[in-house]
């Protein structure tokens, strides 16, 4: 018995390379932010459009300010979403607010859209006592149970099969929710990506695989990542629904994700969305793109800035104005700076946070190690200012250093 679909017999030998499956790119706004002629205006009402736009602008402001703070040495690390705001936020806005998001790390815009507060961002970035992750992870590894946003994990692509599993659970729960997972075209090369897609169609799971194809994985250009026509055609191999969309066109992204959600939740068809975009900033604060790409290339993409495009569309509909824009920018910049100052001043997480959450309870062996550490810090408080502060030892008058 063959387990493939019924296959016709042919007597002429022919090899196929899949080239006939070149995918078009779905777009509604042109590069200037004007609707293509002859198409219906999409069903995005004013309030939602402005909610999306504000989240995009906020994300841009947050990224600019925090990268500057990193340059000033106030932050150990930072990573921007710049250029990909429409992809991330347009998709998030098409979901139900309690659908699960399992992101890679460049999706702070999704949290901004769902209402993660500036203080919540800052507490994670500065790893202070209010950080939900207890100062254990590098900056930008956000998470929020309340906002259905799984805590970020640095090892790439691990979240993709997890999204398939999470969504399978949602299907069994029967409450009509789905999971979206975001990842780069680089991460899509990992084995985890392929495992995730295959399991999703085999088990008919309500999951949306959202690939941010931003052209680079650190220094590696997409053309060195795959020989095919992008990531999208891989869906055919798993008999998955797929669409490619202009990732800098917020209306197209929103529309595509809305329909993907319907397919996933109502028909249990998992969907792959490939959003074509560009990482306008460096990979992270540790990276310098001048070593692998030209200014000219960057400039060409700056013209296609997704925020500029959406703004034009909003202004054309008289839903937005320059005055409102300036007021908003000023407010966000001020709020970010004030929040940053508050977060910086807060104490580090308590010393116990070193050993909690490894298990549900601290095992005896680890408790012994912790007790020894505490005694050690009491002997050398000047060497461990954070630990000493947590233990309530005032060591401001102690001599610095021992050797």
């Amino acid at each position, binding site marked *: 018995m063959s387990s493939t679909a019924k296959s016709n017999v042919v007597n002429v030998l022919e090899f196929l390379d899949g080239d006939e499956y070149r995918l078009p790119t779905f777009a509604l706004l042109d590069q200037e932010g004007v609707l293509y002629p002859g198409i219906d205006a999409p069903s995005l009402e004013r309030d939602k459009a402005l909610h999306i736009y504000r989240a995009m602008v906020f994300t841009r402001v947050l990224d600019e300010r925090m990268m500057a703070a990193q340059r000033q040495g106030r932050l150990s690390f930072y990573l921007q979403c710049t250029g990909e705001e429409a992809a991330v936020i347009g998709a998030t806005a098409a979901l139900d607010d309690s659908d699960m998001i399992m992101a890679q790390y460049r999706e702070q815009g999704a949290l901004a859209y769902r209402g993660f507060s500036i203080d919540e961002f800052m507490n994670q970035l500065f790893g202070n006592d209010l950080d939900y992750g207890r100062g254990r992870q590098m900056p930008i590894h956000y998470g929020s149970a309340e906002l259905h946003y799984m805590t970020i994990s640095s090892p790439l692509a691990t979240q993709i099969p997890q999204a398939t599993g999470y969504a399978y659970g949602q299907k069994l729960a029967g409450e009509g929710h789905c999971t979206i997972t975001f990842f780069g075209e680089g991460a899509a090369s990992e084995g985890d990506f392929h495992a995730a897609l295959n399991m999703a169609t085999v088990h008919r799971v309500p999951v949306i695989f959202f690939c941010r194809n931003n052209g680079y*994985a650190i220094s590696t250009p997409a053309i060195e990542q795959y020989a095919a026509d992008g990531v999208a055609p891989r869906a055919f191999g798993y008999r998955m629904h797929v669409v490619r969309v202009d990732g800098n066109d917020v209306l197209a992204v929103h529309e595509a994700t809305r329909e993907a959600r319907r397919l996933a939740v109502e028909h249990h068809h998992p969907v792959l969305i490939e959003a074509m975009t560009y990482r306008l900033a460096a990979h992270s604060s540790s990276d310098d793109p001048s070593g692998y790409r030209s200014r000219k290339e960057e400039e060409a993409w700056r013209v296609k800035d997704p925020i500029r495009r959406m703004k034009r569309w909003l202004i054309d509909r008289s839903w937005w104005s320059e005055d409102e824009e300036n007021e908003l920018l000023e407010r966000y910049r001020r709020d970010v700076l004030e929040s940053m100052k508050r977060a910086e001043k807060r104490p580090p997480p308590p010393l116990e946070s070193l050993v909690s959450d490894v298990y549900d309870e601290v095992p005896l062996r680890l408790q012994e*190690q*912790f007790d020894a*550490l505490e005694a050690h810090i009491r002997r050398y408080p000047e060497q461990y200012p954070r630990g000493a502060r947590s233990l309530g030892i005032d060591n401001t008058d102690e001599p610095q250093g021992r050797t």
Partner: protein
Amino acid sequence: MPTMNMLQAINNALDMAMASDERVICFGEDVGTFGGVFRATSHLQERYGKARCFNTPLVEQGIVGFANGLAAQGAVPIAEIQFADYIFPAFDQLVNETAKFRYRSGNLFNVAGLTIRAPYGGGISGGLYHSQSPEAYFTHTPGLKIVVPRNPYQAKGLLLASIRDANPVLFFEPKRLYRAATGEVPDADYQLPLGNAEILKEGNDVTVLGWGAQMTMIEAAVEMVENEGVSCEVIDLRTLLPWDVDTVAESVFKTGRLVITHEAPLTGGFAGEIAATIQERCFLYLESPIARVAGLDTPFPLTLEKEYMPDQWKLHDAIKASIEF
């Protein structure tokens, strides 16, 4: 003799290996045009072409599987895993394939030429996933050699030896020292022996043993305790698999005391294996329990990294406790 930092010494070794043997091939994520995120493979693509130095797609199991096949074919692959924390997608290829290629085929086939390089270790504000020391997962795998250099001179000589060794070698590079450690490195092609520990300083009261970045912690701790009148014998293990039991045992016969340190968590760490072996060999000579100064039995933290690290003060106290036992 030129002065180099550890990255320059590694780059120099790779350059020399590629120049001296055209079967040597370097690849991994971002290693091509860009020269690696730490720049360890800078200019190699320029010098030796895209066929011998290139970017791979982002897939560690692919990188190591590809390297295994390439080595089986007779080439000399040097694969980079961008961070040791990201070696785990390749765990199957390393543990079930790399390590067992020769044994399972009765040496019909082997991956003798293979070297895997990976930056490891903490002290760089890297948090959970840019700080780990995963050596003990691999020391439990017969068939692999595991090498860890402590400074630029050692890095060049040990890397050249690893590349030319007739066994697959996992070469863990202490990234905290990539730029921080500088020293004289000969221009010449030279190799340092695998499987040999090195006595860095002779002493009588206690043997202090480590490898890689922990050697800087040992150096600082030893300076402190020597000022307090304790004479230390310092050993860099250099190769963790197969390890040099004789050199360590000889030292402990003399000093009667042993303090071992690594950054990885205490439980299941390689210090446990060393302690067990040395107490078998040296039981009647031991004056105090063998001490381990290691990371906590937790994932690697960020904000409280300084508190977590097995640093010179923790080592200082462990050495003193061993002496005063």
